[in-house]
């Protein structure tokens, strides 16, 4: 998604001149075009994320629309109090961009993975989070964020490649119909559902994608599906705490949409203490590959 993001930022600069792009010294072989287009409005603030976020708050206070780019974990967790105080409390339109949400940094290891970024930001006032799924989402999300007066976080990852036409980015998207289970996921982890090599299994799954937090009201079509199928599965490349499963549980209960069964598939971190590619970590956490297939088959038999 990084290349699409850079292209979208360059395109955005053609229609808005109040943009400032701040990177925390990341974006090699990605942001060169942004740097060229933005000129003095492209700032490498160095490996100093706390200053970068407060700086962005000051720029927003002065009427600009600052974007702060780093790896997801460094963009969110290192400057967390700056996001809380200087951005969210003041309701300033600072746009945080975290590259490599979830296990996207793969073999880089645990310090580079972001498995709690969404949960950490969900609890902050005024913060709206955007989670693109496929490459084509990124331009639309960037444009939407530019027009959103709230603080935002954009969680970039490795774009999902899904069969068929994927509807345009939206807070809730039905990706495919299915017979007996409703699966709701956030971000590119959903790709794993299509790669199980088991069409019979896939046919059972009605798949929805969540694109924003806080969760918008559950759409009527999804309410109807939950009431009909009665069994819901969530899947996310994120720890359980603060993630989609928890948020959806709350939304369902408080809106009176109560399934018979809810199973939340989520990242557990590093169960074996070993490292690998993103795919390897997803599989180890039961979020992709044969472990996901066997878990789903088990749920279907239940």
């Amino acid at each position: 998604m990084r290349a699409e993001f850079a292209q979208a930022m360059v395109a955005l600069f053609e229609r808005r001149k109040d943009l400032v792009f701040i990177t925390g010294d990341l974006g090699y072989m990605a942001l060169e075009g942004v740097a060229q287009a933005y000129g003095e409005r492209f700032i490498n603030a160095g490996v100093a994320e706390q200053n970068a976020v407060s700086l962005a708050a000051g720029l927003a206070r002065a009427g600009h629309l600052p974007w702060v780019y780093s790896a997801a974990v460094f963009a969110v967790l290192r400057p967390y109090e700056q996001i809380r105080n200087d951005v969210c409390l003041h309701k300033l339109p600072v746009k945080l961009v975290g590259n490599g949400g979830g296990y996207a940094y793969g073999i880089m290891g645990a310090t580079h993975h972001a498995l709690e970024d969404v949960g950490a930001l969900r609890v902050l006032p005024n913060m709206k989070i955007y989670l693109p799924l496929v490459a084509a989402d990124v331009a639309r999300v960037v444009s939407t964020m530019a027009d959103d007066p709230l603080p935002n976080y954009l969680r970039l990852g490795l774009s999902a490649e899904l069969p068929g036409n994927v509807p345009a980015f939206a807070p809730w998207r039905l990706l495919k119909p299915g017979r007996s289970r409703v699966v709701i996921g956030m971000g590119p982890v959903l790709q794993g559902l299509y790669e199980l090599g088991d069409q019979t299994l896939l046919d059972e799954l009605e798949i929805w994608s969540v694109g924003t937090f806080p969760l918008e009201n559950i759409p009527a079509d999804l309410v109807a599906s939950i009431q009909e199928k009665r069994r819901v599965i969530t899947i996310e490349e994120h720890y359980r705490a603060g993630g989609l499963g928890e948020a959806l549980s709350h939304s369902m209960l408080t809106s009176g949409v109560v399934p018979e069964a809810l199973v939340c598939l989520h990242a557990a971190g590093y169960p074996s203490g070993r490292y690998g590619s993103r795919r390897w970590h997803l599989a180890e956490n039961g979020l992709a590959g044969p472990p996901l297939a066997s878990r789903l088959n088990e749920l279907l038999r239940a």
Partner: protein
Amino acid sequence: MTEYATAECVMLAERVFSVKTRFLAMYKKANAGHIGSSLSCAEILVFLKFAWMRDDDTFVLSKGHAAAALYSVLAEANVLTKSQIDSYYEEGTELPALPPFNTIEQIPFATGSLGHGLSVSAGMTLGARFNGQERRFFCVTSDGELDEGSVWEAALFIAHHKLHNLVWVIDRNQIQAIGRTEDVLALEPLDAKLRAFGFHVITVDGHDFASLLAARDECAGLWTRRAAPVAIIANTVKGNGISYMQHTVDCHYLPMTDAQYEQALAELKRAHAATVHGDRNAG
């Protein structure tokens, strides 16, 4: 009385007397602490507001725990009303112990968590540069605040981007929350550190208006050359002017008893009479 020779110094002395009298009353009514922190920066804040800043300049009190001094200065400038001041610390007030967010235009950022003010000031300064504005920005930090790494991130940024119209004033009162700065986490040689970071460093007596005014004049010359950004080390005394508070850690925390409040007011009046009227035996 050479140090208070000019009319400007007398005006500032009158202002600071009024500001201190007001915030001592606020602290007493609220039975609140952080009195020493407000006393150490009172002259600095009055000097910035009434002798240096123009209407379109911006001030950030990064050491938000001295909010009472800031509120009192804003009341002195008729920005805050008497009823707002009277509500300090009360239930439902707009004026909490540390500065609020998005409530008072002259307080652009809620501060209080240390190490934020210099960075947000840098952001606003850069924003004004992009806007083609000649506005100036003033940020007062404490010295204990310099323990925060984010302050030095901001310092690197300000120097690298030559944000010369941002003035950083350090209230160097030598005492942080529960100890002396040099005992807790030594800052000295502070001026050399700041120079090494790329700042033009001016050291002043932070309670002496003539010394502060000289720094202002030095900056004016620097700005015409768009030289290095400025850091002013204002040597101050925590609890300044009140004998039982001066140089103590306690005055960071403790409210005043009735007797202490009477003593504080009496000492303040006596010192003021001596400086403005040259009557060292007054009171």
